[in-house]
């Protein structure tokens, strides 16, 4: 993190609106990725990001170390997404995943459906790491920073995530090959 970035975070913490808006421009996609990883829904993820940005602005004074500001933002987004996720609990998870797939009963959608359920079966952290990787093409270090992981942990996480997906999708993969 360079000095200008840190200065930006510091200004945002001290109530500089422009700095905060700049942070929104640079970081909202990351937040979206995190929320999406949890919710698996673009609309809900967008709402969650909006909510968490508002909350972050209101609670920004709680952050002491400007360097931790991005991680803190991510944490807020994750909590917010969890809240949303919890609230929709009454709707069964499997049903929701199956629902949008049903109207498209072709081959590729079958693979999609399999992929969805495989992704849903992954631990949340794995899903988040994957999402960040594929959405933002982030390198390992940035992902680790964003998710608050220690150095080197991500390599195992992504490896396991890919392996798990691969195992579940093997039949489909073979057929496509």
């Amino acid at each position, binding site marked *: 993190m360079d000095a200008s970035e840190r200065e930006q975070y510091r200004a945002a913490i001290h*109530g500089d609106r422009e700095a905060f808006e700049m942070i929104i421009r640079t970081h909202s*996609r990351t937040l979206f990725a995190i929320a999406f990883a949890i919710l698996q829904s673009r609309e809900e993820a967008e709402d969650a990001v909006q909510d968490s940005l*508002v909350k972050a602005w209101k609670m920004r004074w709680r952050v002491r170390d400007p360097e931790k500001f991005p991680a803190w933002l991510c944490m807020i987004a994750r909590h917010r997404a969890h809240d949303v996720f919890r609230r929709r609990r009454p709707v069964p998870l499997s049903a929701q995943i199956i629902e949008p797939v049903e109207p498209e009963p072709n081959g590729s959608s079958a693979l999609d459906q399999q992929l969805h359920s495989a992704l849903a079966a992954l631990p949340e952290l794995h899903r988040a790491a994957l999402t960040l990787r594929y959405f933002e093409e982030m390198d390992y270090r940035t992902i680790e920073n964003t998710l608050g992981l220690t150095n080197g942990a991500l390599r195992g996480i992504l490896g396991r995530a890919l392996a798990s997906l691969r195992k579940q999708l093997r039949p489909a993969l073979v057929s*496509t090959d």
Partner: protein
Amino acid sequence: MATVHDEIDNWLAADLYGELSDEEQRQLHTHLVECAVCRKTHQETKTMNKILEETFAQQKPDPAFEQRMLASFRQRIPERSGLLKLLADLMRLRAAQVTAVAAVLLALVQLGRMITGETATPQRARDRYANEQLFEQPSQVAATSEPDRAGALEKSDELAAGKPKDLALPAPPPSSGTRSELHKDFKALPATVAPAKTPQAETAAKEIGSEEAMNYVAEPSSAETPAPELVNRKLIRNATVELEIVSFDDAVQKITAFAKEERGYVATTDSQKQANGKLRGQVVVKVLPENLDRFLQKIRGLGELKNQTLGTEDVTKAYFDTDARLKNARVMEQRLVDMMKTKTGKVSDLLQVEKELGRVREEIEKMQGELKYWDSQVQFATVTISLVEKDMEEPAAFLIKERSQLALYAPDVEKIYNDIKALASSKVQITNAQLNRDYSGRISATMSMLIAPEESEAVIGRVKSFGRVENFQTQTERIAQGGTGMAENAKTKRDKVELNITISREEQEQAFQQTSLRIRTSSVDEKARDLRTLAEKQGGRACSSTFTRDPDGRELANIWLRVPMKNYSALMQSLHSLGKVEDVGVHRQDRTGTQIDEANAPADISIQVYSQGNIVSSETGLFATLRRTLTQSASAIMWSLRMIGVAVAFLAPWVIAIVFIVWFVKRIARARQSKAR
């Protein structure tokens, strides 16, 4: 390369995401060439990556995503303006937060204080103990400062009252002004009414002053007797004058001369001689009414005027009534005389007529006498002059009365009481003797006696020798007999001497000198006993003593000694042998105007013997100060904590209740929301 094979998933993933170093990439490729299983996995992973990329690419946020986020943020958080923003920003500052917390704590402390009604007194208990026991300085200070404060209050009261006073002040002058104006008018009046008055009289009027202005109002009207409208009026004027003169005879001569000048005469003179040879008397002078005023002026020059009254009686109506009736009576007389002259009729009738004539004549005479009297009264004004010689009240003799008050202090009151009683004889009469013993066993006696003048000196001397004289007062009074003031040749006589004696026990005597001091020593008990013996050696005694020991091992003895003044300095010297003498304070009462036997006068010494205790060392020095400060701050903090605790305890139920209510309301709201969904 077992590690690569075992963790092939991680390696492949890292390879996929370009996270392998060149060395690692080389290792992976080597392994993939060797291991068929891993090669297959590599293939599958690559395929899956493609699928994943495709899938995620669909879900990726569109390019306008950031703009949407910004727009919603701006919509939901409208930019704050002005003061609110400033306040919100301010609260974000560390210093502001600290201040706010401090303010809250202070408020809590204050609240705690209000609840408990306690004030911050983090004074050390030990110090307090010392202060109260040793010197009672705080109370003294309070006592001395109290009147000051009271004085200040009074002053402020005065200030407050000052305004009304000042406001009230200007009121009188106008009234006095009007009075003086009235006065002027008053004085001016006679001047206008009586322009004929002689300048001499006018100057005299000014001399006499305002109080006699009344007389001058009356005078002009009376002085106008010859005025046209008053010619036929019959006025009787009289005056009384009281004068103090040097010689009675001279005055009478002069009055006679004045009366002659004014064509009057001295009607009567009478005089009395007083016991001191001075004369008092009265002279009645008749003068012509028109000369009355001049006559009075002259008389005033004789001596000091004490009193003067002027009276005028108008007898005009009565005079003319009588005059008319006289004329009628004369006519009646004439007719009766005529009846007698004719001599007709019976004798009885004649007798009747004669009788009637007699009655009428008698009446005529009476009326004539009355008129004559009035005439004489009107013709001459009557001036009654009372004359008193000066120094009328000079006394004839003097009586010297001597009264003495004697206050004695004695060790044995009763013995002296009896001794004095034994002095009684024909020349010494005891009029009153009283021996009192009060509930606490204190004895006092009061005696009164009358002593023949020639014996008085000796008797008083003897009585004085019985005890210590605290006070002796003699009052001599010269009583004049038969008058007041001075007299050159009056006789002087001595009366019996009255002596009042008060005898009290020595303890009650107020000390001539009071000393307070402290002695620091290690063994208080022992030194206190030493002190007692020392005092007895110097002819004194211990009047009271107390001994206390506090929990710190500090011992404290208060001893009050009384010694005669002559031994005072010796005792003070010997005190130094007992320990370190500190804080010596001497208070001496110089009773001026009373003869006192200073050598034997009692001196009080209040001594405080104390030890420093076992734990506490000297109370001076850096460490003691430091310790004291620390203890004080610690107790202050403890006190604050206690207050905060009280406040929190006070507020806690409310906070809990409010939080519970809020939580409950939120829960209900949430339940409703979920139900609606």
